């Protein structure tokens, strides 16, 4: 209910003066009737105003934003991001109603549940969840998080669909190469194994980053995990560092160990995909802060719920990263880690 103008309740202006049909001065003046009509009108007006005021709390209760958090699966990392997301909403003091689902349910059932819930916003955590949300809910704002290589989920990081924004897990490749150079300053050639069907686009971006960093990128294509041993053979002679991309053809459970062991045995510095890789024997890795990724996604969600269209919010990258260095591997391969790198590292494995 709106009011055309703010009229003090004590005003003596009659209602008739606002009537579109009447003309000023056409009000019926009937001597003794005028004061009664004015009093009744005021009372009515007062009642209406009180009624509106009394409705206000009820109206507020009905405007809690409805949010669906949709995770790839129930994994610690996604749960941390979900926690950060919820905390971010809490901090913004946004009244919300949140439901959480994982992608282990059937598509039809999941779609029906979400539609029934009538969300104001969907927060998919993970590529599978993001792809599903993009395909099924083109009409609902989506803020994704914990997605690596959004383009693989059909989300162009430069020009995403108009209802989608989010926080990817991608650490800018140039930053990764600069980290490599800080740890292995003699680096001239960086090698990487990849399946063009999986991470071809990532490698295209990597070539540009390599040019910017002043190094050569030796990108070796493989088509199946069986190609990995042959691809690794002699790599230590052709490259100074092994960089890695999250390619499921390259990194199966069997090939992951093979690659790490090979790199260690042949004194080839290896940058792992994550802290887990550094723990497992890669020389170093950059890690993301999953809670903060969730929090950053919450900040975008708050703005969208306040009226900003998703298309106005560019897809962002992790705000916080950590460097993990495995000193045992460094000793094993005879590499001296520069002092300033040790000081900046978030975790040193000994």
């Amino acid at each position, binding site marked *: 209910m709106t009011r055309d103008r703010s009229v003090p309740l004590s005003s003596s202006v009659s209602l008739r003066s606002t009537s579109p049909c009447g003309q000023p001065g056409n009000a019926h003046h009937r001597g003794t009737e005028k004061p009664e009509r004015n009093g009744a009108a005021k009372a009515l007006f007062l009642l209406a105003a009180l009624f509106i005021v009394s409705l206000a709390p009820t109206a507020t209760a009905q405007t809690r934003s409805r949010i669906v958090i949709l995770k*790839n*699966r129930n994994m*610690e*990392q996604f749960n941390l991001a979900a926690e950060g997301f919820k905390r971010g909403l809490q901090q913004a003091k946004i009244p919300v109603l949140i439901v959480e689902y994982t*992608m*282990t*349910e*059937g*598509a*039809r*059932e999941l779609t029906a549940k979400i539609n029934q819930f009538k969300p104001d916003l969907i927060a998919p955590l*993970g*590529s*599978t969840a993001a792809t599903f949300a993009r395909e099924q809910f083109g009409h609902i704002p989506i803020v994704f998080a*914990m*997605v*690596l290589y959004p383009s*693989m989920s059909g989300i162009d990081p430069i020009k995403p669909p108009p209802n989608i924004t989010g926080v990817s*897990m991608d650490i800018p490749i140039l930053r990764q190469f600069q980290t490599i150079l800080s740890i292995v300053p003699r680096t001239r050639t960086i090698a990487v194994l990849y399946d063009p069907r*999986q991470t071809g686009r990532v490698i295209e971006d990597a070539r540009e980053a390599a040019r910017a960093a002043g190094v050569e990128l030796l990108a070796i294509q493989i088509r199946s*995990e*069986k190609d*990995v*041993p042959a691809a690794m053979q002699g790599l230590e*002679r052709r490259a100074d560092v092994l960089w890695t991309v*999250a390619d*499921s053809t390259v*990194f*199966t*459970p*069997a*090939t*992951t*160990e*093979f690659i*790490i*062991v090979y790199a*260690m045995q042949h*004194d080839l510095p290896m940058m792992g*995909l*994550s802290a*887990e*890789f550094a*723990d*497992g024997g*890669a020389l170093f890795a950059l890690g993301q802060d999953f809670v903060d990724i969730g929090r950053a996604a919450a900040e975008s969600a708050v703005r969208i719920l306040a009226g900003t269209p998703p298309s106005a919010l560019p897809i962002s990258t992790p705000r916080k990263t950590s460097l993990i260095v495995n000193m*045992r591997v460094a*000793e*094993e391969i*005879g590499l*001296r*880690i520069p*002092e300033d790198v*040790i*000081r900046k*590292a*978030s*975790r*040193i494995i*000994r």
Partner: protein
Amino acid sequence: MKNAVVILYAVLIFTAPAVLAQDEQPGVDEKNPPPEELLFRNVSVVSAAKKVQQRSEAPAAISVITRQDIESSGARTIAEAIQFIAGVNVFGLQGANIRGVGSGSRILLLVDGRRCNDVFSGGFEDGLERPLTKVERIEVIKGPASALYGTNAFAGIINVITRRPLTARGLEVHARAGNFSTRAVETTWGNDGGNVDTLFSLSGYSDRGHDLRGTNDDVRALEFFGKAEGYGFTVSGGLRPSKRGVPNIGGNLTPTSSSRRTDSFGHVQYARELRPEWSVYSQLYFQREHLDLRDPSGDLDIRDLRIEAEARTHYRLSERNEFTAGIELRRDRTTDDSTAVQGRFRSTNKSIFVEDELRVTNRVRLTAGVRADDNSVFGSSVNPRVGVVASLPTGTIVKGFYGRAFRGPDFVLLFTDIQLGVFRLVRNPNLKPERVTSMEVEVTHPVSPWLDASLNVYRNSLRDLIAVVFTSGTNLTYVNRGEASANGVEVGVHGQLGNELSFFSNFAYQDAEDDTTGASIALVPSRTVNAGLTYRPGETLTVGVFGKYVGPRPTTDLAGRPTSLPHYYKVDVSLTARLRENLDLTAAIYNIFDAVYERSLGSPQYRTQALIGLRYRAW
């Protein structure tokens, strides 16, 4: 009716997948997981104890001395390099025991997987004096390991890994000189040959001896080592002639006593990854030793030959389960042309071993293995080992092991009579292997980003220990009689402050006791403390200070009365300073406070020794 039931079952079987299938599953494809989930995958370099493995998750208590540790400590030999490991007791430059058990043939010495224990005596006392120029890393595995390595892996294993051509590229020459007319030159040349890489090492050492028990304790040794890697093969060979007086052999010293020893070996290894989940490894080597000892108490002229072949396979059955299996065949032969005893002795040892490693959860893995050995001389032995490794979310790693090991009696005990002054040690061809059962728990914890702490508690029960007993008059012989237990606790810290300062300290308490008599086992100190500090303020200077305290050690005098060797401490200091880009000055003072101590009664060890040298590197 029966037909109906059959038909019903058939219908169910063929339609069950469709019936049970959900409508289109948008869930995660396990074969092609989303890219971010590859980052979350728990990665651990899992492998059996015989592969390169990450120390923290290896199913054993392993201490590693790296090339960097070797250079910063100024260690001259394998013995010096490992002397500061908790639970390892080394005396002078020779001999070692692990947790109170050792003295030669109770510790297995491996170099690149090749057994280096003498065929005749089972020991390796000369082996620990090998120079370190070609050594990349030394791993000390404490505790019984016969489940994978068979005999001699009784108290533990000293596993020496030599440098690879690619990491030793270029020329390195290290020349040193010091008191007691010490001269040492070590040369290494590594070449990246494209498909075949090569490494050659030539070392020479001489000193006039420390005149500890006589004047004929000079040493001269030369060592040549070569290695080629390519096409999956590693071929290596070496020759080491040496000449010394006899303090480390025993017997009466006279100015004319001397010993000459020549060691040689040839070794071929082949490793191949047939598939990412399946790898094979094989090795074939021969090893020859010739010891020629001249001493008035009796000459020894012993020629050993060992030939061994091994094949093993490693297979990943699933993401959580890995399996290793192998076979070994070894022929040992000793030809003894000594004046006292002449003969030829042979043994054949056939072995088979298996080990399975199961990752029960992402944080817990179980290892179980067993090895069966059949020896033509002393019979069969089966030795199991089980272990559990748990990685806690705090970064703490907890390990628990149970294992059995054996040590077969050596040829010298089985086939040879030895005259020791007026006493005569008579052979016993009926000796059985010694046995040990061990339980151990180890906890390591990252106290802070720059400090790790560890705690190790173990219990070893030893049976059928070979002891020397009097038989008649001045004759003695060997019998399986001893029972002993060796229990202990080891506590240690290891830290790194920035890139400048690294330090370690450890304390070991050992309680080794003869179960039959209740007496403490000879020469085992109840407490030792080690500490070291390496300061590296930049690329041009490294300073290391290392100290060792050894508590009193029980022993008996010549009359057999209990006594003890007093406690001692010794400190070594080393320095490396870069003079120019390719040239380093190295200096070390060993036993800087001139501690006087003995390996055993009447066996004094080296006093203060200083070495100064120049190391040149060119790529």
